[in-house]
């Protein structure tokens, strides 16, 4: 029974496909999985918009949407109908072809990333040998569609927002890759299913997730910072800073095309949270050995939604960074710490089993972070916020 529930989607697919002639079965099976991904994540996106607006409202001591349906739960349906029926305005001087292609390419590239994420036991669309490489290749190609959107609008706010977004995504892609590389160094594989398999197993009822190792913990923090910047979420939401740039690269988009950008942004958040879950939080494995009877896909999606909650929480808590702070943070703090983390990971790998490597690796990392914080504090660079222009 438990086994059936765990594999229910896999079994369902087998059962549906078994009615077809044998020649069609592989193709239809893949199409069914693709359809499941293409339906599930936009549905999750609809739920997340309510969740986010409600959560932000709570943080800001408001009520949030509460008029459509019970507790405002049907709000995304109203929003969807609104964006579908709105007039699609293309500015007169805009480059019509590029303006049309940009949101489409963005959503396609973002959807491709889901193909390699293992969402449960045996639940991965393509079990690729180079899964991680594929994922990063796909996420790198979203940058060009952001540029296309900003450039084709022929609007200074759009262009500035696009340039900011592209510069930010390129800068934070380096720490994103370097913080993920430690996991590849440990498992010796780029396949995401093998990375999840390397984190299965329990010691004293606790899982072998990479976040519970010194290098994994430091790597996860760096990964979280890089993903927040990569998805243009607050506090790194300069590309669409409302007070400066109207809405950044999607200023000139309306109706359904705007909805596509919105969808693409949230899907990127889901997929990159899914990747973080896979790399550091054990993928679909259970957090305690006595909870292994719970279906694996429940664990994957719980971890994913927990990451989304942290994203929303940060958005409600932290103020936006300035452009120079953003770049200094990427190149002077995150990047050196990722490099240090890689060295610690190598040390961990070659010290062999035993408690000594825990002590030494933790000491190096905690020492580095503490020394850095202490040094900055001594030089007076961390302190009350100073204003350059608005005194």
């Amino acid at each position, binding site marked *: 029974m438990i086994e059936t529930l765990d594999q229910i989607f896999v079994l369902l697919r087998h059962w549906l496909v078994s009615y077809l002639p044998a020649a069609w079965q592989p193709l239809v099976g893949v199409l069914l999985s693709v359809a499941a991904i293409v339906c599930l994540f936009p549905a999750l996106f609809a739920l997340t918009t309510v969740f986010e607006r409600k959560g932000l409202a709570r943080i800001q001591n408001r009520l949030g949407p509460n008029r459509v349906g019970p507790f405002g739960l049907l709000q995304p349906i109203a929003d969807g109908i609104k964006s579908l029926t709105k007039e699609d305005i293309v500015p007169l001087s805009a480059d019509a072809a590029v303006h049309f292609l940009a949101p489409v390419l963005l959503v396609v590239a973002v959807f491709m990333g889901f193909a390699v994420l293992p969402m449960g036991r045996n639940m991965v669309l393509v079990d690729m*040998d*180079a899964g991680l*490489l*594929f994922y*990063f*290749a796909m996420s*790198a190609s979203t940058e060009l569609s952001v540029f296309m959107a900003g450039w084709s609008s022929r609007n200074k706010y759009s262009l500035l927002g696009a*340039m900011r977004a*592209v510069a930010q995504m390129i800068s934070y892609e380096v720490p994103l890759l370097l913080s993920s590389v430690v996991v590849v160094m440990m498992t010796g*594989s780029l396949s995401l299913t093998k990375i999840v398999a390397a984190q299965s197993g329990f010691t004293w009822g606790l899982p072998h997730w990479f976040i519970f190792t010194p290098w994994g913990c430091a790597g996860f923090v760096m990964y979280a910072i890089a993903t927040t910047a990569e998805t243009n979420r607050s506090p790194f939401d300069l590309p669409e800073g409302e007070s400066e740039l109207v809405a950044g690269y999607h200023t000139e988009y309306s109706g359904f095309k705007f909805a596509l950008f919105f969808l693409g942004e949230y899907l990127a958040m889901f997929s990159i949270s899914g990747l973080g879950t896979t790399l550091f939080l054990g993928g679909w494995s259970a957090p305690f050995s006595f909870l292994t009877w719970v279906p694996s896909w429940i664990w994957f999606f719980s971890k994913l939604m927990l990451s989304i909650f942290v994203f929303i929480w940060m958005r409600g808590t932290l103020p936006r960074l300035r452009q120079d702070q953003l770049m200094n943070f990427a190149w002077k703090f995150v990047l050196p710490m990722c490099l240090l983390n890689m060295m610690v990971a190598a040390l961990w790998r070659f010290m062999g089993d035993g408690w000594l490597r825990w002590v030494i690796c933790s000491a190096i990392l905690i020492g580095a972070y503490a020394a850095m914080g202490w040094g900055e504090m001594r030089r007076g660079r961390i302190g009350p916020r100073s204003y350059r222009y608005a005194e």
Partner: protein
Amino acid sequence: MSFVFYILAALTVAGGLAAMLLKNTVHCALALTVAFAGQALLFLNLDAQFAGFAQILVYIGAVAILVVFAILLTRGSETPRDGVFSGTWLVGLVIAAGVFAVLGWAVIQSIPVLPHETAVPAVTVLQIGNALVSRYVLPLEIVAVLLTAAMIGAVIVAMHEKEGQK
């Protein structure tokens, strides 16, 4: 030569031609990206996963962005009035034809030299990775040093000269 190959080849060649013939410089850069994507798909069609994904990651994710940044930060994307064809297009054509002829000749000459493979050689990403950090580690390190030197040079060129201002 499968049906897929012809589609991809047509896509790549069309992208390359568009990159050469379009009037707007940013359109040219985007068309060049289509050609890069076509090449990546051709690699994937040949089961060369590593080359294909690296092509997407490096060329579409970085080189194309670099190209459009360079266009926007230098001349702007406006089309020049007096056409986009350079005055020395004939020389360029001769050089391009020469390079193409040498490459084509080399490929044709190499066919009898290479052993005739009956089965498709299966090179996984894992093997490439292991080879890079064991047998080919020295070239890898030299490339890394070269790139680091280039990056430091770029930073020095772009840095503000504070002494001069004071």
